[in-house]
């Protein structure tokens, strides 16, 4: 009886770290890395102070330290991944008066940059 209970507990705890969840985390880490690479390649630092990227460190736009904890994008839009992915590619379409131009990138890059921004958690 006891033995069955122990096995049951082990089975439940093994189930807790299910393979799908592990898989999900790995994919996430990969897109965060890709996003960071895209941010460096595109030179987002020309306007933004970016965590983990020493140079360039521009002052035209807001600092992106702790961006995941920020409620709003550009002070106007809710900070949701789907909106963020559109904003990083084509900011003027969402915030007409912004100084941030549309930036040529693939949809995958926009998603990866979004994943990277969502990983900037300083809470």
């Amino acid at each position, binding site marked *: 009886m006891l033995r069955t209970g122990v096995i049951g507990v082990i089975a439940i705890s093994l189930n807790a770290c299910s393979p799908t969840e592990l898989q999900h985390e790995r994919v996430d880490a990969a897109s965060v890395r890709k996003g960071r690479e895209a941010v460096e*390649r*595109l*030179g*987002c630092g*020309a*306007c933004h102070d970016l965590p983990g990227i020493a140079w*360039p*460190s*521009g*002052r*035209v*736009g807001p600092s992106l330290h702790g961006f995941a904890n920020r409620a709003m994008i550009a002070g106007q839009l809710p900070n949701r991944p789907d909106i963020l992915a559109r904003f990083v590619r084509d900011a*003027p379409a969402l915030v*007409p*008066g*912004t*100084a*941030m*131009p*549309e*930036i*040529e990138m693939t949809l995958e890059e926009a998603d990866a940059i979004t994943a990277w921004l969502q990983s900037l958690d300083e809470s």
Partner: protein
Amino acid sequence: MSPEAPIPASTASWLPVILDSAGPFSQPVTTLAWVIFTGGFVILGIVIAALTIALFGSPRLKARLGGEKAIWIGGFAFPVVVLTILLIWGLWLTSHLSAQRITGDEMRVRVIGEMWWWRVHYLDENGRETFRDANELHIPVGQPVLLDLQAADVIHSFWVPRLAGKMDMIPGRTNRLLIQADAPGVYHGQCAEYCGGPHALMGFVVVAHAPEDFARWQAARAPAPAAQGSAARGADLFMSSGCAACHTIRGSPADGLAGPDLTHVGSRRSLGAGILPNNKGTLAGWIADSQALKPGNRMPAYHQFDGEELRALADYLASRQ
């Protein structure tokens, strides 16, 4: 942001640039560097062996190591012979890099060092200027290109490590340097003589094209057509906000000479003299506050534009292909 086929960035190798020659005029430097590194390691091995004997060897070996003969051989004869051979061989090897090799048939370009960027003037076979660009040099692969190197203000040094050794750029003088790339690619350069504040941010880009691509690139050097839409508004702002006082855009009234020629700025691979990627975002960031990116450079920060104006200017410059 170039109309041509993408060119691989040639920085894939793990080797440090001086050990990763990409043409005949950097090869002797690479050879010399390998010989000096290898020789240095061999001599380090000999010194460690001698040290081991001195610490742990038998009394007989210790006595031999400390004798007068060992001092004369190891401390005098060996360095004199090795350094003499190295000096003569090194001078012979690098003498091939000097201007003696110039045949007169090379493509010619004048590159002028400025604080803290580069003027690039393409010349015809008679040394007359054909057109101007800045911070980026396009060459065909597999043939030597002769550079007339000058300086406008202080001493700079032209260095594209994978294509040639360094050559100083001295005010009032023209120094000549041959470069050649054996494979298409993008080769990075850097000012190699301290020239004040943002010296470390005075970069350069050499783009080597296959011959047919180079001919296509040359043919496309006409100024871009008049701007449309948002870019047209950017053009008006460019002329009315003072940009044209320092920058030339051929085909427009802008004819300033103090700063880089921007006729083809949209097709360049970098911004701010080889330091930033070139897209509308970095263009806007540079215009609004280049002082945050390259402190001390001679372009002031322009804080007077609103968001749409700044984007219009970036659109205009990006359209100058």
